[in-house]
Each structure stands twice: as structure tokens, then as C-alpha cells.
């Protein structure tokens, strides 16, 4: 079970550091689940690192890096059932991989190709939300709607520390509380909104404290500790399923990479702190935990990494093999019954493009 370390601002942790803090364990997580978690972490890490390279190679466009956010994503998704829905932001662009989405789909999204837009029903993963916090009410509406239909589904929305300043977060959270929606509001507090530190974002002592304003529990967890994230999410899921309503989880981490490929954090960030974070990053921390517990051998780890690399190799190859999108896709799908001028527009455009 996780412990709360008051010295670290009430953060829950399971993974120790070997010396000062002994490792804990999470009830019900056996060897297979522990390894599955590791697999997911490595898949996300590999996705992220390869994407930065693909970007440098000009094979994908601007890309929002999620290095050191993998524990928050993999840990929380592992606590869900397949029937539960995920509402990601751009920071969780590849979270669908944990639900069987091909890497090529996500890569296509970052390549600006229509093949990157999926059917949320196929994976229980909503579309990537770009405008900050606006998907919080979507997740809440979904959870509330599922409950009204008598379906046992939880919805989880991912958003950042900066997102908690938006009105959309507030209104979504307010609805969640009032409707007792089986929703989890998962805040990735990486302590930066582009160049804005969380201290300039809010005067609240912690982001979890905001929960009280919505009549829901607020939980703080070490976002670099995949087991603590898993456990905190599992508890929130249990509450949701039991009809006890939503939970706000604040997972505290640190953005040790640029906001996105276009960003140069050297102007604003504390490089020393970044270095510390990099040394304590979430995948390595879990790897060392598994090694200490004798669950993971170096050979297994290597195999898992190789598998993930293969997924990415295959992913980028398929994404690049996508035929150029037909111009009709400019017009398709916006409406089920499109207003008549759109057909005329397409004809005209085809004529001009020749």
C-alpha cells in the first residue's frame, strides 16, 4: 500500500529509493501485472523518444513531448477496465497505444494526416483535446450519461496543472460533483504550463486542494511512481463504480523536457532541477524497483525494449505508407447531412486542382 510522505507535501508513494525509503507493494498486483505495467511504460517511453527523433528527421510535425509522464499515463490506465473511457489532452496523445491503437494512428495525427483521426468507440479513447481543459466536461458528461444509461463505465480526463485555471475545468468539475459522475479528473502537475510555473498559475496550496470546491476527494500522488499512480487511480475507480462520485487526482511530476518540439525551455527553466528529474525519471525508477523485487531481468527488459522499438518501426513505416489524403476529406464528415454548397465547393475545387 502507498504511504503518504508529509515531507514531500503529502505525496503518496509506493516505490522506495532502496535506502532511505523501503519499497512498498500494491495489493493484488502480481508478477504478470507488474511486468505488463513495465511493458506499457517502455512502450510509451519508446514512442516518445522515437517521436522526437522522427520530428528532427522531418517525418512528423510539431510534437508535444511526454518524457517522464509515462508513469502517470500507464499507471492510471492500468487501473481502468476496457469499458472505461479515456479523454486525453495532447500530452497523452499516445495513450491509445495502451488500448491497442496502432502507433501509426498516433504518428499520423502528428503528421497531420486524416489516418490519425480515430473512432473513439474503437478504443474507448476520445479524440486528442488541444484546447486546454475543454475536455473535462466531455469526460464528465460521458460518465454521467453512462450512469444514466445504467452502464458501469468510468471516464478519466487528463489535463495539466495550467488547465486547472480554465473555466472549463471548473465547470466540468462542478458538474461532476453535482451529478456524482463516475469520473476521474487526472491532473498531470508537471509544474509548468509552457513557461509558466505552477506558482504563477494559482495561489492554491496544492492542486488537489481544489477538489473541496467541488465536493470530491482530492488525492496527491507522486507522478513518477507508477505504482502509487496505479493504486490511487484504482481507489478512485472503485469509488466511482460504487456510486460515490468523482475524484480529483493530482499527480506531481516535473516537465524535464521541452513543452513541445518547438519550445526552448532554456529561457525559463531551472536546468539543475531538470537534471535531477532526469536522473530520477519514472521508467528507470520502476525498472530499479522491479530489479530489486527480482521481477525483471536485464534480458527481459532488453526484450521489452526491442519489442517497443519494433512497434515504432512498424508504426512510422505504416504512417508513411498512408496514401496522400484525397481532397474530398476536406469536406467529408463535418456533417452527417451536409448543406448543399459543400458538394459544389468540392466539385469546383477538383476542377481547379485539375
Amino acid at each position: 500500500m502507498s504511504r503518504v510522505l508529509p515531507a514531500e507535501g503529502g505525496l503518496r508513494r509506493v516505490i522506495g529509493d532502496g535506502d532511505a525509503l523501503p519499497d512498498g507493494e500494491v495489493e493484488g498486483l502480481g508478477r504478470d501485472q507488474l511486468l505488463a505495467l513495465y511493458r506499457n511504460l517502455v512502450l510509451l517511453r519508446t514512442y516518445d523518444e522515437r517521436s522526437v527523433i522522427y520530428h528532427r528527421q522531418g517525418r512528423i510535425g510539431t510534437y508535444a513531448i511526454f518524457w517522464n509522464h509515462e508513469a502517470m499515463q500507464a499507471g492510471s490506465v492500468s487501473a481502468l477496465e476496457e469499458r472505461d473511457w479515456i479523454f486525453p489532452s495532447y500530452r497523452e496523445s499516445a495513450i491509445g497505444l495502451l488500448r491497442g491503437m496502432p502507433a501509426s494512428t498516433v504518428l499520423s495525427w502528428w503528421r497531420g494526416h486524416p489516418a490519425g483521426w480515430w473512432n473513439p468507440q474503437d478504443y474507448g479513447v476520445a479524440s486528442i483535446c488541444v484546447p486546454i481543459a475543454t475536455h473535462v466536461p466531455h469526460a464528465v458528461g460521458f460518465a454521467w450519461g453512462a450512469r444514466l444509461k445504467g452502464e458501469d463505465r468510468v471516464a478519466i480526463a487528463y489535463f495539466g496543472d495550467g488547465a486547472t485555471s480554465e473555466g472549463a475545468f471548473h465547470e466540468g468539475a462542478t458538474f461532476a460533483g453535482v451529478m456524482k459522475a463516475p469520473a476521474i479528473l487526472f491532473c498531470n502537475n508537471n509544474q509548468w504550463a509552457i513557461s509558466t510555473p505552477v506558482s504563477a498559475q494559482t495561489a492554491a496550496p496544492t492542486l488537489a486542494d481544489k477538489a473541496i470546491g467541488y465536493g470530491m476527494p482530492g488525492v496527491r500522488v507522486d507522478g513518477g511512481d507508477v505504482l502509487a499512480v496505479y493504486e490511487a487511480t484504482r481507489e478512485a475507480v472503485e469509488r466511482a463504480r460504487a456510486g460515490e462520485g468523482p475524484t480529483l487526482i493530482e499527480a506531481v511530476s516535473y516537465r524535464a523536457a521541452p513543452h513541445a518540439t518547438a519550445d526552448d525551455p532554456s529561457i525559463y527553466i531551472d536546468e539543475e532541477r531538470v537534471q535531477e528529474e532526469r536522473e530520477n525519471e519514472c521508467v528507470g525508477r520502476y525498472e530499479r524497483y522491479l530489479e530489486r523485487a527480482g521481477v525483471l531481468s536485464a534480458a527481459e527488459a532488453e526484450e521489452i525494449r526491442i519489442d517497443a522499438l519494433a512497434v515504432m518501426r512498424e508504426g512510422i513505416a505504416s504512417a508513411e505508407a498512408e496514401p496522400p489524403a484525397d481532397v474530398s476529406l476536406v469536406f467529408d464528415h463535418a456533417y452527417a447531412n451536409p448543406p448543399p454548397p459543400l458538394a459544389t465547393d468540392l466539385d469546383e475545387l477538383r476542377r481547379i486542382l485539375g
Partner: protein
Amino acid sequence: MKELLLVEAVNDALHVEMERDPAVMVMGQDVGLLGGVFRATAGLQDRYGADRCVDTPLAEAGILGTAVGLCMAGWKPVCEMQYDAFSYPALDQLINHVGRYRWRTRGKMSFPLAIRMPYGGSVRAPELHDDSPETYYVHTPGVKVAIPSTPADAKGLIAAAIRDPDPVVIFEPKLIYRLARGEVPEGEHIVPLGKARIAREGSDVTIIAYGAMVGVAERAAEALESEASCEVVDLRSLKPLDEDGLLSSIAKTGRAIVVQEAPRVCGFAAEVVAVLAERAIFDLRAPVLRVTGYDVPYPYWQLEDAYVPSEARVVDAVRRVLAA
């Protein structure tokens, strides 16, 4: 057929559609126990329960944002915005999500939500209870807009909006909620989106209007009876727009006036004029004039009659295009 007030026709449409389709739900501020500040949702909570007729928190972006999620869970939410000017906090959800989400799923998921709101002025109300915000909605891709001017159309367009797999916004002219009375078909009744209505036939000039302005146009046409034969076209649906209907009227009259209550710049009248200038320029025998609200805040209500297009202003415009 029953004689109903326009607001009663709205209520009737909601009753019929909720009865017909258990996925339809109504949500908004005070729509439940109170039945809405205009009583448009009266009786729905009693009949369909508080889960299908929901009093929401006072948060318009929350209403429209959760409605998007409700669609994803299989519901067809009908969101009431209590008044025109109070719908603006939800514009972000409208533009960035409601109009785009179907496209994002490449047509795999539908967002069959409807938004309805009372709109327009002349009701002697405090500030910001009188806006005509249709431009903000109609300019937004992925969103359709309809505006009834009669009880029967109110019922039929709301039903069409609810059944349409695309998001549709219905603006209800609040001035005539209880002034417009007319026969309304009982039970299911649909007025398809995209079809204008000839409210009055004529041959010299076409007066194009929608909402409460249709009545103004009709009265102006009547006042002009001895001078000119005015055709009055009630657009009913702004997107999709019945371009062919408009063009055939202009082919006949060669002259057009467009009346709208909203501020002029980029109002829907501009769109109508632009369509005519693109597709009917050689039919036009006179300038196309717009009679609109002005590009200033909707005024203090003691002055609102000077702001809202009046019969006199429409008459004046008709005379000018006839003289041109």
C-alpha cells in the same frame, strides 16, 4: 390541429420528441421543476423524470461541454440557454468541439445535440436579454441554425433539430412566444431544415426575413399594398440555406431587401446579400438593401423600438429599391 402559442408549440415538440425517443434529454438552468423561465419545458420533468429533464448548475460551458460527453454516451441532449446573451460562455465549446467532433471521428460518431434559446429584443427587458447572436452560430462550421416565426414551424424545426444527426441551434423569437398563435399539427411534426417559406407572394420586390422580423416584413408588405407587390420570404433555416428558393423569388422580383434584428456587420443579411450578388447579379435591378440592428450595443429599452428594424424602416427601404 390545435391552436397554440409559439412557446406552447416549443413545449409540444419537446414532449413529442421525448416520448418518441428515450435517448432525448433536456438540460439547462431552471428547465426542470420550474419548467423554464418561459415555461418552454413545462411538464417535462414531471413526465420524464429529473434524469431526462435536468436542472443544471449555472454554467453554460458546462452545459454544452457535458452535452458533448452525453452524446458520446448515447444521449441526444437538448440544451436550453436561458437567454441569447447568456449563451456566450458556451461559444468555446460550440466552436472548438460541438462543430468539430463528428469530423474528428471521421464521421464515426454523431453529436445529435440541439441547442435552443429565446432570442431577440423588444421585450422591455434589462440589458442583455435582447441579443440576436445567430451570426456567431451560423459562422461556425459543423453547426446548423434554424429560426422559426410561427408556432407550427417552431414545433417542426425543433423536432427536425432533435432528429438531425448534426448539432442544430434553434433560436426562438421571444417577443412572439406569446404573441404568435397558430394551428399546429398534433403528434409528430417535422419541418425539414433548409426550406424557406413564402410567407406572402408578390412580384415587385422580395423581403427576406426570419424570426420576429417576418411579422415586421409582412406588416410592411401590407402597408405597401397600394404601391408595390411585396413577396415575403421567411428563411426558417439559416444553415442550410434555401438558396434555390431565394433565387427563384429574386428571378421573379429582381429586387431584394433583407431584414435582420442583429447588428449589421457580418450579420446573416450580409450572407444572403452575398449569395445574391454571386448567383443572381444579373437578375438584380436595384441595390440590395439591408434593414438591420445597428452596430452598437442593443440599447436601453426605452429606445429599443428605434433600434429594432421597424415596419417604417422596411417600407422606406422598399421604396428606395423601387425608386432605384
